[in-house]
């Protein structure tokens, strides 16, 4: 039995094709891995956005609560010792007559 001899060109083409195939295969795997990783990151960021939105809502309620007129008046009167202005202390800037 005589083994078939490959020409040099055939060997080069085969090696080249193998390299190209391997390259595409590696690229494909890398691309898939990257996509999955990006997917995880996107999901993580989405969760972060959701969590930040919730945090904003919470802070808005807190802000609203801190600015409630009852609280502001209590602090003004009790802590800052302020009192309502007397009538003669009021200056109007919207008096057009």
């Amino acid at each position, binding site marked *: 039995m005589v083994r078939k001899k490959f020409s040099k060109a055939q060997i080069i083409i085969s090696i080249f094709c193998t390299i190209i195939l391997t390259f595409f295969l590696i690229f494909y795997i890398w691309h898939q891995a990257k996509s999955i990783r990006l997917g995880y990151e996107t999901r993580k960021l989405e969760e972060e956005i959701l969590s930040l939105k919730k945090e904003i809502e919470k802070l808005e309620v807190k802000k609203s609560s801190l600015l409630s*007129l009852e609280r502001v008046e209590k602090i003004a009167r009790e802590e800052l010792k302020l009192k309502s202005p007397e009538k003669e202390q009021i200056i109007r800037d*919207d008096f*057009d*007559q």
Partner: protein
Amino acid sequence: MKNLYQKKIKKRTIILTFFLALWLCVLISRLIQLQVINYPRFRKEVIEQNQNKKIINPKRGTIYDRSGTILAQSLPVQSVFCSPLDDEPMDIQLEKINKLRQILHLSNKHAQTIKKRIEKNDHFIWIKRKIDLATAEKAKNLHLNGVQFIEENKRFYPQQKLAAHIIGRVNIDDEGQSGIEYKYNSTLQGKKGQGIVLRDAKRRGYMFQTLKEPQPGIDLVLTIDETIQYIAEEELQKAIHRTKASWGTVVISQPFSGEILAMANYPTFSHDSPRLDRNGAIHHTYAPGSTFKIITASAAIESGRVNFKDQYDCSMGFISIAGQKIRDHKKYGTLSFPEVIIHSSNVGTIQVGQQVGEENLYKTITGFGFGQKTEIDLPAEEKGIFRSIKDWTKISAASLSIGYEISVTAIQMLQAVNVIANKGVITRPKIVKKILDPSIGAKKIPLQFKRVISEETATRLTSIFREVTKTGTGKEAQVKGYDVAGKTGTAQKLDPSTGHYSSRAHTASFAGFVPADKPVISMIIVIDEPQGQYYGGQVAAPVFREIAVQVLRYLHIPPQKILSEHIITAKYWRQDKK
């Protein structure tokens, strides 16, 4: 020899093949039994064992005041539940509850209820709902098998008790129970989603999957103004304490649009109190007394039967109708029609009523909306009591002329005052300004108008009611720099034990608007059973003044008249600014 050996092999192969085929048949039969015959039963059992469907409540819509201040908002919190494991001994399961009890501050009664449910082998037991995130974190750190956490929404009211009667309350499942929360429950609530808890063979929950995303509720913008509401609540509270009254309400509106700017009740309650369900301004009915003379005067002018120059003899200080004496609090002598209203003479008003006639009086009272709900967008509104004309007695017209034999709500009376302020047009009071539906954009609630009396009648009435606060019974309602139009009312309350009007229990009220010629706000104040002074002009009118001064300043409504004293004008500064 070879043939014998081959035969033996062949025989063995046949036997082996036969047994293999038999084994395969048994396997196939068993598979058919499991996958086809018993499939529905096993499927049901598996689902029961490893899945638990759960309703996901959507985030409830936010409620804002007219300037965008948050009045009610839902925020995510954690709820704890347990799914006991089948093979876990009872004492270990109960031990878990004891551990959680300290962190979650469970009461003895609550802990016992949970334990009883564990003993009954319940597969889903709430341990505590809507706890704060820090507490939930502490409980999570215990790493207890079968104890799970789920996110829910909890209603927060950052303004605390402010406008509590209007906003109302929700129950633990975020369903509205009173106020706007109840009336607009379907709008605020959104659509429920569905989730599933997946369990392993030991029935431990290992995953929560959302099957159907919940649709969040729609936000609402109320007509209420946080600052005006605060002013109304503060002043009402002061008035109730000052007069030692049992109850009171203040309602402030924009006459043109019917938008309610403030609706205060005192005593008020926190958002978790069931007593919040009764909003006195729309629920509590009372005899309006002299404020109802607004309607008698309207009927008088509109019917054309009464002239401004008509004179009424009030010199006796009383009038007898069907054998009953109705009195004035003093003898007035002879009064003209406007003077009868300005001084709130019962004797004079009854004579005016007689001149108007029963038919006209009935028509006007009905036209102003009494005996019917105002259709304000709040639940549990009362329509009051107003009898049909065919049920009237001989004294009914006289009693109605001065605000008896009828019971009204504060909101009905304010609606009537708004007719005068609006030059004869009635507007439906409303409390929701906008529905912020993201699918159709902000939906405004349309205004509804209907003419009740002519513009001329309303203008003439305004001139009379302006005089009430200048020289009549409502002097205490005067606001410096502004013309106020209004009417006082003092009504004796019906004593249920005797069936007669009490001489000790009264309802004092004042209803009016300011500025009289171009009304920006209209207001009604009702003070129930004040002690000591009890006249509307003494008890309710000053509350009108105190609130109006602050609200007009807040709304930047400049005084109509130059005030030489006390107020320094700074027009030059404004010009510089321009």
